[in-house]
């Protein structure tokens, strides 16, 4: 088995991993990017729709265009990478030493590294996670699987589509099917409000006359060989189906866009601590987890709305890795926990030092109008006409602002009704 030494090993070559690899190279780290698939780029490769890069490049790009800009940069820097390479296991040898065992078509490699940046993305929730009973015939796809088939391999799964979940992924897939001439019969959303960005509700559903069923749940799949129909019911305030409200929607295809779950099995095996609200790891402001020297970025950290944030996190993790190496570990710090206040579902990172700039990512629990988002400990406030769980709140706190909270032990974010 081949043994190699690195400053950092980056697992997963989607936008977070690529951004981390580029940044690590720029910072002079010896880095390698390890990718499972036979090509770099991750999910944006199959995203032929626009909406990428508005923040990072100040341009509206497709996923493919967005990620290609990074490929050019990678090439110039000569970023080392491995394709068709599956991380078999991670051995946490010491705080500053990990061994990443990788299965590749060239043989098994043991990558000895001081730090690890984990950017393996998320997996999709599948049909058995959404409490739907009935048959299990052909014709049930996750949104990502359907997108891979359509936009990488040019295969259309079916003609009459029902989409479960109105997050951005579901909305974009609804439009994608409609554009190819398939009939999208319904988008089903459990909550009483849509799960995706407003622009996508308009551009993906309304523009194509696709009905959105809010406050509905798919309860049963019917079909022996192929999906024949899906049974849908209204839900009450507790999100339980109301008897007698069932309706049947005939279709040949069900596309599940019922949310993403950070893909962390590999790290959970070595003791990763998970935040139940993000289902991602608990991290400090360098995106370092409870396992010293292990950093997580992108959708493996928290499910993001925008690829721009994913890239930002990848770069931050690389900076964290350098800081870790320079100091033989992140120096001991009186970390201040970041607390979820009123109507806040989660905030990442979970710990800040107050000694440097930090970006907080948060989501609200429920939609609310005319509110103020506040971090009282630093006196920061932002008036918002509208907050929705679908739209991530991103706040950059400068070191100067944070110094105002030097004497407090924690900081918190809350949403308070405005006047």
């Amino acid at each position: 088995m081949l043994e190699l030494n690195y400053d950092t090993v980056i697992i997963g070559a989607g936008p977070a991993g690529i951004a981390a690899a580029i940044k690590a190279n720029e910072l002079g780290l010896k880095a390698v990017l390890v990718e499972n698939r036979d090509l770099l780029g991750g999910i944006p490769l199959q995203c032929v729709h626009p909406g990428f890069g508005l923040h990072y490049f100040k341009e509206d790009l497709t996923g493919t265009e967005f990620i290609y800009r990074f490929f050019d940069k990678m090439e110039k820097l000569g970023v080392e990478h491995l394709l068709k390479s599956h991380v078999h296991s991670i051995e946490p040898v010491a705080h500053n030493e990990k061994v990443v065992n990788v299965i590749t078509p060239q043989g098994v490699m043991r990558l000895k590294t001081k730090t690890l940046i984990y950017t393996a993305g998320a997996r999709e929730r599948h049909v058995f996670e959404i409490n739907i009973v009935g048959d299990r015939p052909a014709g049930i796809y996750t949104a990502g699987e359907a997108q891979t088939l359509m936009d990488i391999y040019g295969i259309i799964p079916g003609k009459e589509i029902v989409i479960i979940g109105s997050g951005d992924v579901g909305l974009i897939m609804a439009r994608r099917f409609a554009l190819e001439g398939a009939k999208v019969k319904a988008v089903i959303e459990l909550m009483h409000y849509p799960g995706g960005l407003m622009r996508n509700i308009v551009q993906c559903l309304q523009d194509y006359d696709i009905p959105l069923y809010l406050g509905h749940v798919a309860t049963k799949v019917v079909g022996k060989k192929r999906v024949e129909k899906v049974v849908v019911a209204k839900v009450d305030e507790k999100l339980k189906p109301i008897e007698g409200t069932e309706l049947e929607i005939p279709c040949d295809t069900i596309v599940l866009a019922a949310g993403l779950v950070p893909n962390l099995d590999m790290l959970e095996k070595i003791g990763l601590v998970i935040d139940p609200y993000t289902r991602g790891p608990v991290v400090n402001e360098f995106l370092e987890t409870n396992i010293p020297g292990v950093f997580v970025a992108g959708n493996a950290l928290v499910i993001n709305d925008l690829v721009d944030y994913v890239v930002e996190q990848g770069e931050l993790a690389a900076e964290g890795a350098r800081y870790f190496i320079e100091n033989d570990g992140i120096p001991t710090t009186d970390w201040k926990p970041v607390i979820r206040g009123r109507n806040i579902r989660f905030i990442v990172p979970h710990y800040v030092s107050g000694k440097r700039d930090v970006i907080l990512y948060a989501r609200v629990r429920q939609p609310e109008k005319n509110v103020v988002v506040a971090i009282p400990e630093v006196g920061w406030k932002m008036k918002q006409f509208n907050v929705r769980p679908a739209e991530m709140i991103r706040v950059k706190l400068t070191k100067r602002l944070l110094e105002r909270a030097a004497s407090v032990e924690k900081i918190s974010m809350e949403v308070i009704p405005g006047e």
Partner: protein
Amino acid sequence: MPLKIAIVGAGIVGSSIARVLSMYEDFDVTLVEKEPDVGWGSSKANTAIIHPGHEEEPDVHPLRARLCREGNALWRQWARELNIPVKWPGELMVFFNEEEEKSARKYIELAKLNKIPGVRAVYRDELLQMDPSVNPSALGAIYAPTAGTISSFEAVIAVVENAVENGVKLLTEAEVRGVKVVDKKVRGVETARGFVEADVVINAAGLYSDKISHMAGVDSGFVVRPRRGEYFLFDENVKVKPEKLLHTTPTPITKGVYAITTVHGNLMIGPTAEDLPIDAKDETSTSEKGLEYVWKESERLLKELPPRAKIIRTFAGLRPEPPGGHWRIEAYDDPWGFVNVAGIRSPGFTSAPAIAQYVLNLIKDKYDVSLVRKKHWNPHRSDIVRVKDRSLQEVDELIRKNPDYGEIICYCKTVSKAEVIEAIERMKKAGVKTITIDGIKFRTRAGLGMCQGSFCRWRMALLISQYAGVPLHKVVVKKDLYGIGEVKALLKPTSQGG
């Protein structure tokens, strides 16, 4: 001239009969199956228990009692010869009150009558040490040390591969449409893939064995009812892992709800037992009511259940239920050559190797066969070489010989491209007509992990497309196609307006 035999149904019973018959020069065996693959009926979706035999009443079901005990012993040998994943942790029938205890203790008596070794009662302190995952409110349990659990779908595949290796022909997608009888003698079966000539037709069609029997004009009053069982399967990565095969005290229709750690390390709980209408023989849908029942019973049985987020699959299977629970194993005079191995309900899986021996003797006596052993009968079947079961050093060596072992297709279960290709080759060799994604899944375990195939289904489809020579959208998932056509060609109206 060897006796031409057609076995209807490639479930565990039909396959086991095929394997046993393949040992002799006297038979020319064709195994006929309506599905695209073997073992897709009751044999696939069950609790996967090899029962000890202490739950069978010898005066009511003497054959069940005897063949269950013999089958339990034979599976130890068969699993070794055929490399089928199996383990023998023993089972605990847990009771929670005196009434349940009373009904559970009855099985000690049955164990004595059926000569099942080692069955005894254990009480709370010992019980909780034997298996700390049992609910501590249990009073005790009946312990039966000879119980095992097997990978049921892999077992059927292994038995068929070995039977084919020894000369059996497999015909899939060959639903039987008629049994041809001339002058009160069977001549063969009409199938969806043509006529199969046979001197002896063995009906091992499970849920459909009543229909096949009626086609031969035998036992027109005999009906097999579907009894549905629903299950939950959890991810490997959960804390609750029963060491023994746990179950609640049986009721008149079921063996109770089980909680087991499968041979692949997943917690599985179930089943329900729900009698369905006679014609509901494909009603393998799950129901909210059924699944809730399993959940509640398992909460009673176990100290704790994992969170629902760790459920990776729910499924339902149908078990065949003959009148009075009686198996119908019989060789008929009219029509001569027709043999029923019908209505094989639980403990059918356990008993299958012993049923096969029993049927062999039935055929030998009925048709006066001499039984000449084949000189080169091969009892062994090797398993697919699996990256997941090897050390990294061994994987490295495998890759040096074949780089496809270094390309991982299924991340959750660490299944390589080489394994998928081997599965495709094995299916072709066994005589499977259509290579399905489900066929690959059951052979390689790709897609059986936490993501349930959302990362690897299309990779398997690509390999099937490549190695079985079909366009990607025409790859079959289980019984229907993966896609309907090419994005750019299919649904767009033509520029001329049609």
